[in-house]
């Protein structure tokens, strides 16, 4: 029988080995059976049965469809497969089927042993030579299995059942459509039973389809196999979102870079530096949120840790220790997302954000062995030696007497002299006979070496004396007895030891109606012996105490392991800074503004986040220093998909930070990086460059706009030619990223982020090229890669104009005679009068500007504008008024410091003139001014109206 059994195992190993060998490296064609599965769920698997030609059933509780092959009879089964299906090993079980009579097709027999592919991977590997982590079979067309034949006169007693479940990719493809519609998980497990006799094993070798399928994006609307990273990720995401935790960026591909040196919790303090891609140009249709995070780096590290301790047991008077440990594996996936380079204009402001997200999955891979709870209280044996050297014995037999004798002689060391002595005493003819005869007469179970007096205390269980007490381990590891009841006077009949403090003992008897009589002289020396085996305790209390302490050790171990992934108090640091340069007295001055910002502009200031369970503490929180846009985490989620146990934890951390903003003087336009009040307002989340900032990364700027030209610039309305008619060779482009062509001037850092305390630097840049093509050089300026005549960003001219011909050409000629287009000009207008400077309603519905249409309107109207219809202000300055105003002027330092008040509208901040509206310098009858609510208009209709003037959808 054993040989048959072994052959069966060998056959099974061979089969699986063949399966493993034919396992394809690529995946297989997508199936489209999800609807069938869904339908089948309502019909107990009928459709699936038809599909596969096997029995199936649906369990609503587990949402599982099970296919069973060969479960209906013991006949061979042909599994019809219409397409390739890939399986991975799920479990192997052994059933005793010797009692099956074939009448109940669902009778699987009695489960004898089961190997779980995940938990018992090592055992499976050892016993079957299969590595469940990699074992796959791909079945195409048919799988033929001839199994146990009922007619066999010698049926095998065992039936091996190998369960496979659908491999990941197959599941992804199969359930895509179904999952998209239902947004829920479909779990399918395939069970293939292989009968006891694996005859004519034949598996059609699959022909691999040339359809490599890679998971390129995690879409949580899909469903994934429960144990894939994607599923874990989506599960965590859902939980996080349920907590209002916001969005986690989804990895775009499998591009995680592993950093093994972080496995030691970043002992090396390694700093990873990432730079933004110079050619990640933001597509025009990119949403505001997405454009900030075009660059993403993914990192991964694993930490395997083993936490050890010792259980301590006190068996008898012996202390026994046992090493125990638990193993934990933590995987941390970190994404670092940051924005692309920025094309800027001097004096303007920009926003730059960085987001780091960590997802941690920790599995307690091996729990510590639980402490032994099966101890039992052992009763020691009294061993006595006669005062004259004769052995009296124990209540047991020769071997126990021998051990007791040696124990008494040398403490159990079995020295030669004691061994010889005790052998003679116990096994010697006279000794043995004497001992046996002696012992058989007694019912002694206990006596006591009393520390208090010389009175004897004994117990005789056969005499119904309810004598209570316990043994314990005293000095020099001697077993002692502590009595708790059954006084001497109540002692039952029989013989017993009386043991005195001095170590002598005597055997006494108590007869019916009589007193206690000595059997021999009280010259014997007695000790308690025995109770040295495993799990033998002297008393309940010691047993309970050991269990309690060892249980604490166990719980501490488990706690330490699970704590490795739980949210502990972790403090992460964050900074962001920007560089710029400006000229002062022909000297270029380099400047860096550090955040969190201090008045001293200290570069050592750090913003910190302390993550702890369900709590995030940010510091500092004041306006000037708070660089955090959002913070989330750290949440512990018990993993439903955990491989092992409830101690498997998923956690995540997320921080988004950037520039906190600058303070802008709403009256004069000055900016400062420090806090101000009054007319200063905070320009949120922005970093503003000084107007005098030097150009930087000009070549990238030009390249960037060459790239973007076709999409947004140089339209027909203005008939301009491309300004930067240059192209870069590929080698030149490489220079952008490998050479010194790029000056990185935006820097963000984080330290101690996440579980493994990641240190990351992010460097990116803004570019400014203020070599705007100037109007004076209009005709010659096509640049072609060379610098244009310099014109600074704040360069403007106040021109006296002819309303009929706002922008005459160089000869002063009038604009084009094309009267059909009143917006025509003799020369190209300055930028702010061009169609490119249109501010449409998408920007600000209450304050639009369409220079192209407006200039057409102005030129059409020409001097007819001097009409009451367009009169905005009408002020008469009498001699008296003039005198008052001149008097008022004397107290002013300049005309730009008039008595004006800032008033905020929905769109712009406007001035509210006290001269015109509050004081009485100009009498009311001498002024016709618009109402206050009309001041919000870019161009008001006239002073009598509160409406804004609009040119065919232009200004408002």
């Amino acid at each position, binding site marked *: 029988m054993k040989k048959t059994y072994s052959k069966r195992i060998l056959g099974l190993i061979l089969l699986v080995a063949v399966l493993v060998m034919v396992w394809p490296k690529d995946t297989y064609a997508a199936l489209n059976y999800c609807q069938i599965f869904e339908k089948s769920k309502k019909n107990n698997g009928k459709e699936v049965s038809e599909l596969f030609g096997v029995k199936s059933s649906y369990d609503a509780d587990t949402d599982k469809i099970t296919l069973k092959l060969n479960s209906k009879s013991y006949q061979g089964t042909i599994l019809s497969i219409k397409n390739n299906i890939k399986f991975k090993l799920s479990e192997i079980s052994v059933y005793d089927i010797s009692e099956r009579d074939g009448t109940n097709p669902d009778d699987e027999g009695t489960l004898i042993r089961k190997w779980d592919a995940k938990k018992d991977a090592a055992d499976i590997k050892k016993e079957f030579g299969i590595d469940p982590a990699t074992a796959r079979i791909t079945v195409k067309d048919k799988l033929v299995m001839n199994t146990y034949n009922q007619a066999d006169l010698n049926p095998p007693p065992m039936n091996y059942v190998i369960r496979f479940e659908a491999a990941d990719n197959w599941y992804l493809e199969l359930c895509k459509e179904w999952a998209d519609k239902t947004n829920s998980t479909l779990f399918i497990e395939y069970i293939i039973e292989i009968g006891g006799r694996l005859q004519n094993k034949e598996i059609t070798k699959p022909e691999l389809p040339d359809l490599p399928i890679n998971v390129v994006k995690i879409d949580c609307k899909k469903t994934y196999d429960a144990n894939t990273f994607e599923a874990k990720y989506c599960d965590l995401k859902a939980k996080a979102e349920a907590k209002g935790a916001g969005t986690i960026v989804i990895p775009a591909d499998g591009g995680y870079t592993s950093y093994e040196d972080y496995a030691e919790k970043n002992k090396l303090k390694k700093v990873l530096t990432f730079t933004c891609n110079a050619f990640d140009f933001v597509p025009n249709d990119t949403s505001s949120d997405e454009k900030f995070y075009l660059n993403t780096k993914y990192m991964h590290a694993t930490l395997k840790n083993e936490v050890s301790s010792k259980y301590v047991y006190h068996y008898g008077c012996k202390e026994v220790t046992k090493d125990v440990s638990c193993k934990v594996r933590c995987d941390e996936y970190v994404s670092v997302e940051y924005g692309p380079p920025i094309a800027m204009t001097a004096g303007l402001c920009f926003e730059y954000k960085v987001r780091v997200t960590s997802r941690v999955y920790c599995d307690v891979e091996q729990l510590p062995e639980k402490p032994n709870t099966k101890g039992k209280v052992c009763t020691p044996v009294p061993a006595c030696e006669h005062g004259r050297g004769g052995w009296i014995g124990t209540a047991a037999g020769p071997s126990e007497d021998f051990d007791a004798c040696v124990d008494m002689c040398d403490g159990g060391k079995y020295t030669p002299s004691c061994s010889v002595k005790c052998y003679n005493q116990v096994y010697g003819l006279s000794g043995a006979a004497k001992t046996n005869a002696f012992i058989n007469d007694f019912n002694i179970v206990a006596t006591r070496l009393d520390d208090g007096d010389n009175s004897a205390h004994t117990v005789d269980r056969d005499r119904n004396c309810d004598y209570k007490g316990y043994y314990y381990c005293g000095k020099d590891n001697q077993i002692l007895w502590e009595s708790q009841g059954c006084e001497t006077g109540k002692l039952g009949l029989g013989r017993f030891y009386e043991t005195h403090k001095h170590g002598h003992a005597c055997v006494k008897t108590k007869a019916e109606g009589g007193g206690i009589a000595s059997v021999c002289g009280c010259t014997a020396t007695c000790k308690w012996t025995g109770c040295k085996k495993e799990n033998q305790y002297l008393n309940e209390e010691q047993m309970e105490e050991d269990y309690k302490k060892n249980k604490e050790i166990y719980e501490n171990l488990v706690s330490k392991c699970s704590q490795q992934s739980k949210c502990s108090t972790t403090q992460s640091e964050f900074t962001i800074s920007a560089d710029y340069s400006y000229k002062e007295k022909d000297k270029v001055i380099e400047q860096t503004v550090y955040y969190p910002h201090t008045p001293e502009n200290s570069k050592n200031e750090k913003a910190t986040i302390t993550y702890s369970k369900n709590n995030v503490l940010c510091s500092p929180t004041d306006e000037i220093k708070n660089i955090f846009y959002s913070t989330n985490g750290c949440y512990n989620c018990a993993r439903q998909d955990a491989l092992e146990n409830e101690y498997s934890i998923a956690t995540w951390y997320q921080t988004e930070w950037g520039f906190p903003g600058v303070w802008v003087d709403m009256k004069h336009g000055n900016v400062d990086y420090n806090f101000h009040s009054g007319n200063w*307002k905070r320009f949120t989340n922005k970093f503003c460059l000084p107007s005098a900032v030097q150009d930087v990364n000009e070549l990238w700027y030009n390249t960037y706009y060459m790239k973007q030209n076709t999409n947004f610039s140089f339209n027909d309305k203005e008939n301009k030619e491309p300004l930067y008619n240059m192209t870069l060779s590929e080698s030149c482009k490489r220079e952008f990223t490998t050479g010194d062509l790029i000056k990185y001037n935006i820097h963000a850092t984080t330290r101690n982020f996440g579980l493994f305390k990641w240190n990351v630097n992010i460097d990116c840049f803004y570019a400014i090229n203020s070599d705007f093509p100037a109007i004076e050089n209009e005709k010659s300026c096509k640049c072609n890669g060379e610098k244009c005549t310099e014109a600074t960003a704040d360069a403007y*001219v106040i*021109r006296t104009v002819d309303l009929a011909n706002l922008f005459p050409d160089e000869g002063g000629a009038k604009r084009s005679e094309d009267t059909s287009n009143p917006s025509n000009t003799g020369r190209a207008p300055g930028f702010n009068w061009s169609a490119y400077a249109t501010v449409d309603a998408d920007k600000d519905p209450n304050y639009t500007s369409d220079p192209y249409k*407006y200039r057409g309107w102005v030129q059409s109207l020409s001097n007819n504008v001097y009409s009451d219809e367009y009169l905005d*202000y009408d002020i008469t300055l009498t001699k008296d008024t003039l005198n008052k105003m001149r008097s008022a002027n004397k107290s002013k330092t300049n*005309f730009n410091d008039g008595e004006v008040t800032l008033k905020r509208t929905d769109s712009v901040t406007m001035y509210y*003139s006290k001269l015109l509206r509050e004081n009485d310098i100009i009498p009311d009858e001498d002024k016709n001014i618009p109402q206050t609510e009309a001041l919000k208009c870019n161009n008001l209709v006239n002073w009598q109206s509160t409406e804004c003037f609009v040119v065919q959808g232009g*200004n408002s």
Partner: protein
Amino acid sequence: MNKGMLAVGIIILSIITLLLINVLSNYSTGSELDYYLLKETTDAALEDSIDPVYLRTCGLYRIDKEKFVENFLYRFANSVETTRSYRVRFYDINEVPPKVSVKIDSLTVLSVDSGKGPEAATITTNYDAIVEAKYYSNLSVEEQLKNKDSDLCKPASKLFE
């Protein structure tokens, strides 16, 4: 006609001639003075009324109409003689792109001032001005203006706390 009467006639004629010359001179020089005064005052007021905050948040020049008018009036009052009255009118002030049209009526010596401003014989001067960028392209501003997700030119109430 006796010599006396002739002398008186000559004197009267001389006075009339002198008066006429004075009036004509007053018209021409007043008009010229008013024009340059108007131009310089307007240009200076335009410069003073450019909104630096809008330039930072939008990359475009904007003038504030109320500030322009006030600044103009203060400057004008500081520059003109207080022997005349003036009527200052502002037409079609456009903030973005900046454009103003200003008209000033001032009394001549023959004007009658009823105390409510000049009512007759005024000198009228018009002046039209714009603020024009000296460059005709700013690609980064242009790009951001076309990108509705960009914060450029968004209402100040959304940008500032």
